[in-house]
């Protein structure tokens, strides 16, 4: 397969163009899973456990059945009857209207045997804490990462610093909650799911329902966000399928906001105790971290330390800790923002101790050649030289400061298949079993195909989000673009070659002489023949040319570097932090669409600001219920708190397509924390950085 054309020869890729489905979305015509409707459809809802730890003794559904409009009820949803968090699924109901559901859920009579529970990380780590799983300690055995020799590294160090950082549990909070609309077509199950993985969900649901793959079809036309929480098949889908079977009717079951907060994943919290050693010349020689995190009843609360910087001698011990809360799920750059918040502050503390500028200290310990360039570009644009060297030097009460942080990412592309149909009237269809989780994949596919065929975006009809289409992976790990774009290029290239052969024969020239450009097919060289795309397609003997293609090496790469600069204002009387400005330099390989790329970086930063200042899952220690499972009390950054964000796309087209969705959210909280320190002279070592923590830190400093 040929390489990408040089950027200067590209007509579409690397440029700015709006999404092909943008108008559909803003006018409300785009049909999300939430919008799916079928004649006779019922509305489903799940009853979640009231208690964080209990045995379900009995579920009486007789009252539920007495409610007019109730068509199906399940009381055997939970496999063991031993629940471990509030909201864990125990029963379900389907009814003719959504209004009935609220009443129906109240009519289940559930007898619980309540058990002791533990909610928060440091509480669950204590010996006397109730066990989440009776035969397992809450504190898992450590996972150990070791490089070099950490004792020797500390022996070489001339300055050693120790500190502790804490981050909170953050919820993915997609605007469209998790859920499915399902119906049975004979013994085949059709599922409209709000998912990041149509193929993965098909495989998962088929397994869970013990059905052959070809009898399960999963469709997701449009998706209202997932951020990693919609990579797996959902129990709500299985429940909806069972309700649909029982009632012999289609069922739409979308989680309400409360269950969405409780049961569909989160970013685990973290407690990181760090020790770092460096030489006077600014070389970091050793890094030791002992970290803990809770993924609720699940695992995967790792903290990716040390992050970004090159350190020869490292030891990191991590313990996952169980608590009575919903299991974590991947969340935009899993394990990284937690690590970055701690790492970037340690870097600044060390730089200060060594009397070095934080940027210089980073340059000295950052071995990534791309980021070396990005640091300089960002510093220049941001005006880093204007940073006050002495913290808290503004007179106040409102003080300003500047800080920075770095991002990183690893995964690249992987197997994706696609097919293309070209009809004799010139119309083109592309089929790919990927999905657009809001990042612009549908548009990118049209762009790559149009670029290859010398057509315009609007001439390509893109079909995605259906497990009947050629297989592509889940949209996670920032893998979608580097997986899908090469497959589409390959498919379009094959189509071009096939069509080229027909035209070469028609004009009696060699196939290499055929060029596709600006809506024309041209025989270059002496023949000087030219047909419009439509005329050329008219030569197809059969009415449709169909080709299949797939991902291959050489068109995408892995590894992403980036950096961010933040300026903040802190009101030292009220403790309120306001982010004034963020400048981000984002590594982005070959850009597919500058608009969607910038949008991804903006989104990552906004979510990072939200993580830094606002979001936090809170439990009632008495009942174990989440006290803020809604958009009013679970604070997410708003438009008025979102600062000016300047995104500098650092493109290296020769690297091919890379995925950039996750890295921009990594360094924001650390950069803000460093800026806060620069402004007020005290460090906020726990997230979110709320006004009361800022005031407390200032008061402690005075004392």
């Amino acid at each position, binding site marked *: 397969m040929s390489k990408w054309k040089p950027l200067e020869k590209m007509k579409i890729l690397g440029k700015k163009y709006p999404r092909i489905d943008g108008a559909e979305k803003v006018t409300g015509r785009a049909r999300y899973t939430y919008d799916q409707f079928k004649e006779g459809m019922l509305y489903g809802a799940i009853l979640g456990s009231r208690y964080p730890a209990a045995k379900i003794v009995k579920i009486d559904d007789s009252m539920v059945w007495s409610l007019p409009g109730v068509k199906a009820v399940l009381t055997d949803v939970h496999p063991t009857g031993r629940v471990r968090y509030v909201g864990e699924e125990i029963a379900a109901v389907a009814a003719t209207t959504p209004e009935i559901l609220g009443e129906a859920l109240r009519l289940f009579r559930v007898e619980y045997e309540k058990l002791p529970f533990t909610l928060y990380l440091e509480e669950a780590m204590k010996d006397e804490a109730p066990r989440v799983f009776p035969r397992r300690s809450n504190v898992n055995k450590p996972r150990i990462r070791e490089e070099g020799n950490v004792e020797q590294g500390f022996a070489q160090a001339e300055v050693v610093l120790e500190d502790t950082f804490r981050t909170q549990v953050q919820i993915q909070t997609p605007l469209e909650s998790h859920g499915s609309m399902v119906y049975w077509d004979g013994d085949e199950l059709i599922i409209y799911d709000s998912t990041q993985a149509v193929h993965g969900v098909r495989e998962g649901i088929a397994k869970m329902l013990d059905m052959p793959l070809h009898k399960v079809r999963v469709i997701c036309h449009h998706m209202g966000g997932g951020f990693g929480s919609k990579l797996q098949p959902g129990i709500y889908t299985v429940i909806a399928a069972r309700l649909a079977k029982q009632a012999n009717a289609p069922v739409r079951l979308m989680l309400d906001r409360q269950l969405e907060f409780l049961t569909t994943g989160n970013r685990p919290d973290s407690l990181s105790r760090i020790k770092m050693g460096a030489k006077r010349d600014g070389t970091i020689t050793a890094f030791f971290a002992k970290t803990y995190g809770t993924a609720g009843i699940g695992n995967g609360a790792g903290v990716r330390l040390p992050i970004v910087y090159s350190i020869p001698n490292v030891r990191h011990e991590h313990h996952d800790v169980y608590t009575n809360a919903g299991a974590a799920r991947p969340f935009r750059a899993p394990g990284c923002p937690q690590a970055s918040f701690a790492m970037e502050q340690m870097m600044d503390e060390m730089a200060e101790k060594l009397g070095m500028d934080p940027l210089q200290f980073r340059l000295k310990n950052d071995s990534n050649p791309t980021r070396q360039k990005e640091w300089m570009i960002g510093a220049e644009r941001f005006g880093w030289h204007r940073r006050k060297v002495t913290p808290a030097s503004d007179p106040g009460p409102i003080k300003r400061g500047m800080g920075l942080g770095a991002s990183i990412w690893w995964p690249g592309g992987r197997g994706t298949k696609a097919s293309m149909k070209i009809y004799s009237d010139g119309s083109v269809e592309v089929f790919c079993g990927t999905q657009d989780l809001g990042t612009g994949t549908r548009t990118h596919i049209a762009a790559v195909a149009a670029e290859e065929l010398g057509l315009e975006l609007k001439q390509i009809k893109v079909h995605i989000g259906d497990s009947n289409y050629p297989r592509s992976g889940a949209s996670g790990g920032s893998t979608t673009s580097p997986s899908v774009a090469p497959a589409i290029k390959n498919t379009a290239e094959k189509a071009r070659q096939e069509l080229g052969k027909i035209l070469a024969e028609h004009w009696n020239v060699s196939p290499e002489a055929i060029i596709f450009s600006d809506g024309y097919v041209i025989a270059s060289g002496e023949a000087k023949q030219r047909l419009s795309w439509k005329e050329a397609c008219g030569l197809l003997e059969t009415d449709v040319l169909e080709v299949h293609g797939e991902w291959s090496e050489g068109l995408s790469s892995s590894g992403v570097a980036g950096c961010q600069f933040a300026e903040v204002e802190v009101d030292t009387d*009220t403790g309120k932090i306001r982010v004034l400005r963020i400048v981000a330099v984002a590594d982005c390989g070959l850009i597919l669409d500058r608009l969607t790329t910038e949008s991804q970086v903006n989104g990552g930063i906004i979510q990072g600001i939200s993580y830094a200042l606002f979001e936090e899952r809170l439990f009632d220690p008495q009942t174990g219920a989440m006290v803020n499972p809604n958009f009013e009390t679970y604070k997410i950054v708003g438009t008025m708190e979102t600062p000016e964000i300047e995104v500098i796309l650092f493109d290296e087209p020769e690297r091919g397509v890379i995925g950039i969705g996750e890295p921009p959210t990594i360094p924001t909280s650390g950069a803000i924390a460093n800026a806060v320190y620069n402004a007020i002279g005290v460090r906020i070592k726990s997230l979110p950085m709320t006004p009361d923590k800022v005031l407390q830190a200032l008061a402690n400093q005075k004392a």
Partner: protein
Amino acid sequence: MKPPPFDYFAPQTLEEVLQLLEQYGDDAKVLAGGQSLIPTMNFRLAQPAVLIDLNGIRELADIQESDEEITVGAMTRQRMLEKSVIIREKTPLIFETIPHIAHVQIRNRGTVGGNLAHADPASELPAVMVTLNATFKLQSLKSERWVSASDFFQGMYMTALQPEEILTEVRIPVQAVTGLYGFEEVARRHGDYALAGVSVLVHLDENQNCEDVRITYFSVGEAPVPAHNAVQFLTGQPLEDEIISEAAELAANNDIDPHDDIHASAKYRRHLAKILTIRALQKAKNRNKPN
């Protein structure tokens, strides 16, 4: 969530409203802008059997001025206050407050009467009405009475309104609007309920000493909280930095009784009250430009 079933009435005259209230009393709720009532019903925290929609009562939505007072109809949208020349010129304290009330979309719908009758202790307008010494007209089929703002607010979501009464009109005395004023609040995000807030109105005597001072807090107690101790302290004194600080300290320590919740501790609210009092009084002071 969706609300449980209820009966719905959409009367066209105040008379009809009062009749319905007389008939249904406690079982009924009046629907004004619905910005608090509808979510409360959707969460099933309120389950009125009867909903009386006031949105058809045109006569309740206007702003008028006379020599003595400014009159605001209960169904006046918050956005109308914001856009009103009378409000901007005659009650600048209200004008300064409005942008802090939720968001434009909510203010388009939310009404003055609904805002006041809901009596959310974290809400801005009730405290401002107490500061302005406003009076409220409460009507029922059989009676009509006037109640001062400070008597109207009785506790968290509790007012002087009887089940068969509604708030129809707000009157703000003109002399109240000629003073030096200030409004301050701190919220986690723009448009959120404030963690603490304060409105102040000060009249100075000919010697530039405080003659009539009104300071009212919100989000630090069960209802709008007047700063009696601070007011007493300030009366007769000039608005000078040290005096302002002392008054703020006094108010924060003695006048308010804030509570802990998930958004802020009582201690932090007390601290905020002090800072905001200083800032609001400073603002008032800076507005004093003797001829």
